[in-house]
């Protein structure tokens, strides 16, 4: 493992640990009042890397803020993240999450929806605590950023659902990127870097540079995620293999294979994608995967992910140009490469 990968691992461990502990405290307190919060603790307690929370803390520290200034925002983000996971799993009809059955599989869809709401509500609490830690004005700004982030995520998911409902197949890479920007990048990479800068600099000027950085980084991250779903190590990955194909998720690879298919193949593909999850056979999915490999769709997506990672590295220089060297800076600097390697 390279030095950079080591560094990332260590920082994730340290900041992730801080965030997890704070998160657990919130959940415990809440669970004392109502059982729904006990259920809500399920996903967060299953583990995970706390990448987003760590990024948020590092992004604040890199501008000189103490950890304590950023913790509440980081925890809030993790809570929202878990809320999104619950929601996504319901909407995608996923079966597994982090090695265990998905929440709606265990408790039914209505309960899962309610748990998602509970997590969302919980996510607001740390932001209110920000008021005494950051002062009312800065806390208000963080809240505004959070509203934006949640809204973008909802809109991104709505777009994806629309595609699924309409069985949209002739989508472009731009469509995919736009959806990813909203659904994934905002809460995974854009929000942490923006809020980190907001807290660290104590002013909200010039945050657009983080949108670019966060977009490229998050997009590379998501495409790599999609690739791992098809070809990755099941244990490490945390979701069932090729689950995306069963879901009919519109990934770059899927769009690519569609573009490069004959009209006959396209008709078959369209029909397959239109089927509900239960009706898709393993044979179908295996055939689709084979076609993707033959058309070079996986290779294509890999190249795009690499290119976007490169763009992220470039934008990092622009966004963090005036920041002195530190472990936090090196951590963020290492992320563009790390999202591809994920070691």
């Amino acid at each position, binding site marked *: 493992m390279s030095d950079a990968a080591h560094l990332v691992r260590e920082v994730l461990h340290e900041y992730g640990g801080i965030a997890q502990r704070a998160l657990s405290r919130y959940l415990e307190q809440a669970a004392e009042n109502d059982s729904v919060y006990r259920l809500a603790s399920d996903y967060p307690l299953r583990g995970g890397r706390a990448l987003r929370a760590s990024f948020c803390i590092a992004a604040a520290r890199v501008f000189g803020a103490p950890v304590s200034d950023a913790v509440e925002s980081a925890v809030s983000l993790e809570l929202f993240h878990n809320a999104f996971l619950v929601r996504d799993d319901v909407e995608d009809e996923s079966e597994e999450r982090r090695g265990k059955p998905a929440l709606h599989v265990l408790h039914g869809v209505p309960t899962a929806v309610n748990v998602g709401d509970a997590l969302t509500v919980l996510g607001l609490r740390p932001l209110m605590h920000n008021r005494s830690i950051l002062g009312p004005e800065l806390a208000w700004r963080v809240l505004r950023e959070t509203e934006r982030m949640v809204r973008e995520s909802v809109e991104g998911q709505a777009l994806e659902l629309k595609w699924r409902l309409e069985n949209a197949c002739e989508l472009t890479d731009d469509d995919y990127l736009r959806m990813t920007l909203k659904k994934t990048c905002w809460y995974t990479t854009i929000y942490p870097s923006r809020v980190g800068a907001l807290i660290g600099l104590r002013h909200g000027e010039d945050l657009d540079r983080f949108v670019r950085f966060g977009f490229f980084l998050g997009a590379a991250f998501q495409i790599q995620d999609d690739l791992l779903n098809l070809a990755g190590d099941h244990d490490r990955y945390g979701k069932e293999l090729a689950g995306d194909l069963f879901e009919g998720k519109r990934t770059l690879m899927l769009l690519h294979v569609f573009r490069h298919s004959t009209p006959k193949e396209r008709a078959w593909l369209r029909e397959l994608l239109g089927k509900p999850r239960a009706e898709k056979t393993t044979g179908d999915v295996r055939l689709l995967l084979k076609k993707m490999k033959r058309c070079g769709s996986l290779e294509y997506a890999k190249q795009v992910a690499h290119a976007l990672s490169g763009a992220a590295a470039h934008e990092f220089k622009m966004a963090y*140009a005036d920041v002195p060297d530190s472990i936090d800076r090196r951590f963020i600097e290492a992320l563009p490469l790390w999202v591809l390697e994920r070691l």
Partner: protein
Amino acid sequence: MTAAYELTQPALGGRYDVTVYQMGFRLGGKGASGRGEHGRIEEHGLHLWMGYYENAFRLMRECYAELGRDPRRFPIATWSDAFVPANFNAVADYSPDGRWLAWLVDFPPSPGSPGDPEPRRWTIPDYLARAAALLRTLIRTVEVRARTTESAPAEHAAFTSPPTLTADGLTDALGRLLKYGALAGLGVAIEATNVLEGALRVAPALPQSLIARFLDALDDVLRRQLGALLEQDDSVRRLWEVIDLLLAVIRGSIRFRLALDPRGFDALDAYDSREWLKMNGASEGSINSAFIRALYDLAFAYEGGDTDRPRIAAGSALRGAMRAFFTYRGAFFWKMTAGMGDVVFAPLYEVLARRGIRFEFFHKLTHVGLGSPSGEPHVARLEFDVQARVRGGKPYEPLVEIAGLPCWPSRPDFAQLEDGERLEREKWDFESQWDRRRAATRVLRVGKDFDVVVLAVGGAVVPYVCRELVERDERWRDMVEHVRTVPTQAFQLWMNTDMRGLGWPHPPVNLSGYVEPFDTWADMTLVAPREAWRTAPRAIAYFCNVLRDAPDAPTEDPAARTEASARAATETAARFVAEQYRLVRDHAVLFLNRDVAALWPAAMTESAQFRWDVLVPGASKARTGAGNGAFDGQFWVANVRPSDRYTQALPGTTKYRISPLDGTYDNLTIAGDWTNSSLNMGCVEAAVMSGRLAAHAISESPALAEIVGYDHP
């Protein structure tokens, strides 16, 4: 012509069979020139080439290389015979006490020549850093003139080594500037520009607000230092005006985050230049300075030709200014040593004819007909008026030899034309879209007579010939409505006294920013040897200016008419053109009597009239001597015909230009400075770039990376 040139490059192996259909008897459109009595050059106006016209110069250099003229036989054989550097320029400064003074500027020659390979690629941070460097030079100049005493605190020395440009470094420098600004002399300001230059080079990476504060601190220092001096000293005042403008440009570029905007300078095109400068802190005095006036004059940037409405798109203008000032090679301006037709279009014509291109003169396009609306959008038909036929069905020979040089005449060779005497007698105007007289009509059909079309008519001709496109396609409608042209006026004088004798003691100059009705003057004595005078004139002067759009200009669509009404329309148009010519003559006479005195003090009589006797008498216009009748022997022109109008870059209109690369019609591309050439100004360079783009649209050659300045902020 550029498109034709590119499509027939040897490297393309003769893939394209090109025919050029030209209205009238000359190539060049607005750039055409003719020869009149004594072989004198007769131009549409003044054509100065700028040292950043990389594409245009490269074209001409290649052309002359291919032409391979024998220098012993031809007075203009190589490109450097044709184009000479013109570094001595002036703008007309109007001082606060009401005097007109020539502000002379001698631009330093720059290494290389335009059209040399591998021009440097500039980014916006580069330009801003250059602007800061220029600022430093100007402040130094002021310092010398103002002879300020500097108080030099010990820490002053800390500025001299370039600071590391982190935000911290800049903050430190800012702090020191604030501390010493009010007290220290201009020396501090000069050192501050060092810091500024470094900061601007890395502009996107530094906090914008910090740079803005630095700019304001610098501005403050300068104002305090110069405030008192401005009233007294004209040269300090002028320099201050430029400094003020530079600060506004830098400040505005930072505020508008141009370095990061993917649209580059286009981001500013909704604004007028002066408006934008004002928004960014330039004072009234500066936006009315000679410098700015000259820029607007040279770009004919007056809406409707009304000099009370100066308007030009800020982005395109700023891009043009940045390229003009910071990227010129060789000289800032280059002058042609003969008429533009002789120097540019005759060589191009010869080279292209040699390559096998066919030229059909006297073919006036009247209509571009599209295929059926339900099918693929394409050009199906091209309709022409054949204005005249050549005797014996031979191709028309357009050139004449004057003083050893192949040239275009000012009038067609009627002897070559069928019924030539009648055409001459009836004064057929072959270069006017409005003169509907013709010998025949002709229709070309797709698949049979042509496959692909390059539409390269003048911008103002488009509404006449593209009625179907305009009707069917909203973008063409928008373009025709928003991308405007304007008429211009010009006159030329041949004089028997040299400029010194007329009261101009300085070297030959190009001067702009002067009064209406003729704000631009160029000394063109250098072309005298190319004309055919028995005794060469001692001085030649060209003047030009915008001309106000007349409300009664012919506009009706000439195509949808009966024979009778076409005749009537032709006559009305001819009368209009004649009236406009008379108007220009009156303007010229008024100018010479009233306004030229400030430039040529010795050109006036005691009764403050122009000394008409300095004008070389004309041969055919026999009235000599008596008063301004002598003027009749000179040359003047009203460029009111559609194909002679000048394309403007008005604010908010860039987005309506259509690019030659636009593929909506699968066998049509367009070329001309009215298209979206990326440069988007009315000039030769834009025209050449558009021609290269048109060639690319058809053949994918030249590569876009080869079109210098296409990808440019």
